[in-house]
């Protein structure tokens, strides 16, 4: 596949699916899965543009590695927060976490 567009279309479909998961899910872990889909679509774009753009170096690969590292850190902290939420209110439904609501 030596064209740029199929990769861009694939990543935009993945991005829209991630946004759909973030909008429609109420379970916090499922929202986290949607965010992972969004980050993966961004990574596909970085690598595809690095392959087909006018670059002679691999800067896009380095950016992709930074994104993967940030996704790992984000998943660890988010799961710690979600487990604390479950300990405190007994559910991970994000609509039930409303103690701070005025």
């Amino acid at each position: 596949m030596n064209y740029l567009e199929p990769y861009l279309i694939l990543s935009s479909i993945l991005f829209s699916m991630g946004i759909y998961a973030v909008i429609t899910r109420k379970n916090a872990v499922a929202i986290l899965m949607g965010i992972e889909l969004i980050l993966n679509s961004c990574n596909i774009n970085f690598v595809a543009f690095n392959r087909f753009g006018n670059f002679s170096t691999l800067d896009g690969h380095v950016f992709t590695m930074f994104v993967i590292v940030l996704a790992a850190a984000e998943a660890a902290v988010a799961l710690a927060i979600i487990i604390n939420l479950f300990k405190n209110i007994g559910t991970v439904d994000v609509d039930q976490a409303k103690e701070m609501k005025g």
Partner: protein
Amino acid sequence: MPFPIPDLGLLLFVGLCGLIIGSAFMVVTSPNLVHSAVSLLFTLFGIAAIYIYLYADFIAATQVVIYVGGILVLIIFGVMLTNKIDNATITSKTHNQIPGIVFSALLLMMQLYAIFNTNWLVNENPPIDNTIMEIGKLLLGKYLLPFEVVSILLLAALIGAAMLSRKKAE
């Protein structure tokens, strides 16, 4: 009579795209959260194969090791730990489907419009054979400061996650 051989690379690419999109659809719509997590496994493996199509072998290996081996296991842990044990099936229904479909379809249309109406300056670089060497040079040369900052951030995130999830000392 010679049998017309289809372009195997193209066929494999289309199959991979179908696998990725189908399993991503399962991730976002399945009411069973364990099924969602297992479908995410197929999505992430498919994306690793897409990286191989883009001559990014090291990124593909990193994807398999970190996403499939690390983050996915963490997510499955999260699914298991945040549900009552006596629940046989862990369910999570979707809500607000109509606004979700409208909003994400609108976003998809905007992106497709931008993709098809831009004159991309595509030039076919010769693929770089030794990507690991190039990435290592970039990481310890041009991107040394972001590399160190991201390692400090990873350390802080690990300590923060451990502190958030431990038991309070009496």
